[in-house]
Structure formats: structure tokens, C-alpha cells
């Protein structure tokens, strides 16, 4: 009955550096962009050059962000693995740490631990069509994947991105994505629950976008991230399109304190979202108690 947990690349990083995995690395905020009323995009640079060089992430991994004097919170890395020297975090003001982060200015110092967790199986996804579905802040980890696919666009077949948000104002990375809507190599569709006067896109839940979608089930990988309520419905749509259960990937949010499989807060069935996830295949997720 013993099951191997996947090799953890980050454990190696910490071993190589001989570093205490609870110790945050000081990082400077290099720029801040207000994306929506509730979300900002932060660009960070780890101050210690040797740590900065050792820091390598894959799309879907996260960091533990420290605000000194306040606490820590797990945050997905939004930037692509190819973006070296800088790390981007898209953060919603949701509680103690994230609100404190929102009060920070460029030049201020925070702490980072990580990268932690298992991201999307990028190597396995190469050569296939990709169907990404993000609800609200769920775009944060998917943005890293999108950027990585963008870097190696010729390696992929059809790439479809479905974005759902409550209102047009709440669409993250809207400027960027607005431009993408006219690109040939990405099929990007957006929908909102509550439109405003200027909205010319779809209205309704993100699942609605599936109706007109053509998917090659033999050749497609799906990736989903969004609020807890979203997963079941989006997975159902993907299953209707005959995607295999082990080719649909979901990224979970759970409460986390350590990021290294000790504190138990992120337990899902017999797994921990922090070291076994946060990205799980739907096959894994459907076999975990309380996952979806």
C-alpha cells in the first residue's frame, strides 16, 4: 500500500544550498501594477545573488510570501520559468498578509521561500493541444503556464484559453489578454457574470464557453484553476468533450503554513496540496477524499 510521493525538486534545491526551508529569503519589490481594484501584480527580486540563481520554478509552483512582522501566505508564481532574476506574484487582498502586501511600495523588502510544490506536467503537455480554464484569481498559476507555452509556442498544437470573471473590471491581465484576442495562435475567450456597458464579450459562467468549442480528445490536455465551486462543473464539461481523466489537471488552493508537508493544514485525502500538488491530475483528485 505504500505509495511513492513524486520527487520533490525543491527539496534538492534546499539541500544543495544547505538552507533551512523555513527561512525566508529577503526579496525587494521592484515594481507594482494595480490590475483590478482588489488585485496587484508584484515583481520581486531576491536580494542574494546565489539564491536568485538557484531559484528555478515550473509553472504551477508557488512561494511562501513573508511580510516581516505579519506572517506568510502561499502565492502562485505568475511569471514564466524563463523569466530569470525576477518573480511575479499576482495578489488579491484577502486577509492579513495579502492586505499588508498591498500596502507595500516598490523598493520595500519582503521574504520568499520556495519554489514549492508540483506544477503542471509541462514536458508531458508538449506536442499537444491545450485547453486552459481560469476562474477569477485562478489565472495566477495558469499565467505562468500560459507564458511558458507562449515561450515555446511552436511546440504546441491548438491553445485555447477560457477566462471567467465576475465583471469586466475584475478580469486580471485584461490589457494583455485584450490584445491576445486578436492573435491567430491563441484562441482566447472571456466571459463575465455581470457585464458593464462597454462589454462586448460573452455573459455567463465559464462553462458556457464550452458549447461552441471543438476539442480533439485524443490530443488535448486540460488545466483548470479557479474558486472551489468551479472545478466540478468545468471538469464535467471537459469530460463531455471526452478528455481523459489523467489529462485534465487541476490546481488546488488550501490553507498552508509550511509549504513542505509538515503543518498538515493542506491535507487532501492522503495527500498534501503543498508537496504532492497544488497541481493534481483529475484522476488523482477524484480519488482523494474532500478534493472536489
Amino acid at each position: 500500500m505504500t505509495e511513492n510521493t513524486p520527487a520533490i525538486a525543491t527539496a534538492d534545491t534546499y539541500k544543495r544550498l544547505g538552507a533551512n526551508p523555513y527561512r525566508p529569503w529577503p526579496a525587494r519589490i521592484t515594481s507594482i501594477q494595480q490590475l483590478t481594484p482588489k488585485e496587484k501584480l508584484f515583481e520581486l527580486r531576491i536580494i542574494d545573488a546565489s539564491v536568485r540563481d538557484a531559484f528555478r520554478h515550473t509553472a504551477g509552483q508557488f512561494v511562501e510570501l513573508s511580510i516581516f512582522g505579519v506572517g506568510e501566505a502561499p502565492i502562485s508564481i505568475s511569471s514564466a520559468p524563463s523569466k530569470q532574476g525576477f518573480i511575479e506574484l499576482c495578489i488579491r487582498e484577502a486577509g492579513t498578509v495579502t492586505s499588508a502586501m498591498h500596502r507595500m511600495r516598490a523598493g520595500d523588502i519582503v521574504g520568499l521561500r520556495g519554489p514549492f510544490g508540483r506544477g503542471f506536467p509541462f514536458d508531458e503537455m508538449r506536442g499537444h493541444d491545450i485547453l486552459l480554464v481560469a476562474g477569477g484569481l485562478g489565472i495566477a498559476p495558469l499565467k505562468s503556464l500560459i507564458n511558458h507555452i507562449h515561450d515555446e509556442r511552436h511546440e504546441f498544437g491548438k491553445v485555447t484559453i477560457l477566462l471567467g470573471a465576475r465583471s469586466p473590471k475584475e478580469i486580471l491581465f485584461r490589457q494583455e489578454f485584450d490584445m491576445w484576442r486578436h492573435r491567430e495562435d491563441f484562441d482566447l475567450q472571456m466571459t463575465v457574470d455581470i457585464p458593464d456597458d462597454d462589454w462586448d464579450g460573452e455573459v455567463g459562467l465559464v462553462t458556457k464557453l464550452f458549447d461552441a468549442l471543438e476539442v480533439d480528445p485524443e490530443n488535448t490536455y486540460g488545466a483548470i484553476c479557479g474558486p472551489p465551486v468551479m472545478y466540478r462543473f468545468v471538469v464535467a464539461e471537459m469530460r463531455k468533450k471526452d478528455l481523459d481523466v489523467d489529462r485534465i489537471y487541476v490546481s488546488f488552493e488550501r490553507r498552508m503554513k509550511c509549504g513542505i508537508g509538515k503543518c498538515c493544514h493542506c491535507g487532501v485525502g492522503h495527500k498534501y496540496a503543498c508537496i504532492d500538488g497544488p497541481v493534481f491530475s483529475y484522476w488523482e483528485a477524484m480519488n482523494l477524499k474532500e478534493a472536489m
Partner: protein
Amino acid sequence: MFFKIIDKESIVDLYAGLAAEYDEVTGPKTSPKDPRYVKFGKIRDASQLRLDYKTSIVPPKKYFLAADERLMRYDRTTGEVYDTEPPLQTRALIGVHPCDINAILMLDDIFLNEFEDPYYKVYRENTFIVGVSCMPSPTCTCNSFGADEVHRGFDLFLSDLGDRWFVSVRSVKAAAIVDRYLDAREVTADDTRAFQERTKRFKKALPKRMDLDQLPLLYDAKYDYPLWEDIGKDCLSCGACSVVCPCCYCFDVRDTLSADGRVGKRHRVWDSCLASEFAEVAHNHNFRPKAADRVRYRFYHKFVGNFTRNGKMLCVGCGRCTTACKAFIDPQRIVKALESEDTPASAGTRKGGGAQ
């Protein structure tokens, strides 16, 4: 491992030796607050040791995973982080029962895996463990969990033969202590026979073993049965069970600032998965909103989760939760309920754990 015999009184020499070699000696002693109880604490004189104790209220896990551990200090303005190691202090821990040593071995699997916990590791490496034999209390179920015997995880082990101790010497450090401080003699055939007798008496006094072979599968199969609602109704979400459990280890992390706001400290403190906010995330979404969800999770982690990960159930049958829980929720009750309940929840009543 080799064996020696020492007199009962030689415990004084053992104490003196450990006190000379280690910064601190701790062990079971009468609780200063209530003489009916025994707790692990600092031993200043061998006469304080209560090696015939039943079960301590709080297990000795506190010496490896402190109830409140400072992880680091930092300068809030510069982000400089320092004091990331626990103060290096050596400790001898005398009088640990087999179940509690087995529990420490389980914590090793978690804290000394590919992500080594540097704090746990320092305590573990700098603690000399002296195990001691016991006789079962009515609440003990160690034999059901294979925790009534222990073969590693200690330096010395003392088995009580009435007027003398049968000593198992497990580590190099222990051999040195025996050599330097104890007037130990070789084991005779009589001693071995007496040891065998003692073991037999101990085994006889243990309760009937629960059959746990099916437990992980049964748990998965009956995950949505109403038994959890029944048991959960009783739970007060007080977390006492987590505090007293030698195999429970979850924690919360907290930051505090000095009065001038310049220097901060980060601590980790014991937590409990029975606490209502344990699995709560932003926007008031709670993955385990009901006490029933949380009780089910606690024992799932113990009997299925950890078992699936590394082949061990996170329970040594020490009986502490049986004593501590005001709602009479303990492993025996869970096992019984899982075995006897045979009515699935009617379709559509509830689906797993309040998750979406």
C-alpha cells in the same frame, strides 16, 4: 544491541552520569499541580523520577516538537533573518514508554524525510533517550497498533525485573554511559528467564487485540456513512486530543513584533485539525466546516492517509485521547463504529466533507 544487568538503586548512578554528560535531564515526575498525575519535566534529583508511572498527560513529543518553538528572529526593515536554529542544548530523556518511542519514530518519518525539519533534527540528534518498560493501563491498546514493543529509537532501555533492571544498550553513546557510570554485570540465564517472564506477564495484561487489517479499506468504503455525523455531533472541537497525542504534530505559524516594531519573531505552535478554522481559506470557504468533517479527517489521516503514504498508522494506542476526550471519541470507538455500521447514508444527503 547488547544487554546488561544493574541494581534498582543504580538508577541514581545513571542519573548522575546523564546529568554530568547532558545539559539537562528530563523524565516522568509527579505533577507539581496535581499529585495524581505524572508529567515529563526537568529532573534535579534521581529521587524525583517516577519510573513506574502509568501514562504521562502530555507525551514526550514536546521535547522534539515544542508546543511553542521560535523559528527565527528578523529585522523588519532590512529583512535580515537570524537565530534560525534552536539553542543547542543536549538533553537526556529518561523513562519513555515503548508506545511513545514508537510515536517518535513516526514523527521521524515526517520531520526527517526529504524536507528535513532543522529544528526537529537538532533536538532529535541531541537527545539521549532512555526507554522504560511498563504495565498496561485499562486505556492502553498499543498491541493493536504494534507499538507494545520497540526495537530502535532509543539509546538505553530499562526493563523492570523487580529488584534489578534488564538493560538494553542500543547506541555507542549508551555503551559509553554504561561503561563510565554504571556498575553493570553480565546477564545470567536466570536474568534472561526473569526477563522472559516479565514480557509474558506484560503481554497477558494487554487487552484483546483489535483486528485492524481491514481498517484502511473500510474507512474509505464507509467514508460517507452516517456514523461520522453521529460521532461528530459529540465533538466539542476542543483540540485536547491533538495536544495529548504523541503522533499528532500539526502546527500553526505566528509572527510577533517587538514594541518598537523593528524586530520580529516567528513561532510555530501546536495546532489541531479539530479547530474549526483549520482548513478555512479566503472568502470564508471552509473545506471541513462541521465537527463531523474534522473528526473524520483526523482519524482518516491517522488510519488511511499516513498508512497510504508510508505504511504506518499514526496511532500507538497510548490511550491518552481516551482519557482526555470529554466526548468519548477515541480510536476504539472509531474502529467499532466502522465495523458495525452497515447503512450507507441515503442518496443525496451529503457528499464528502463539505467540499464543493
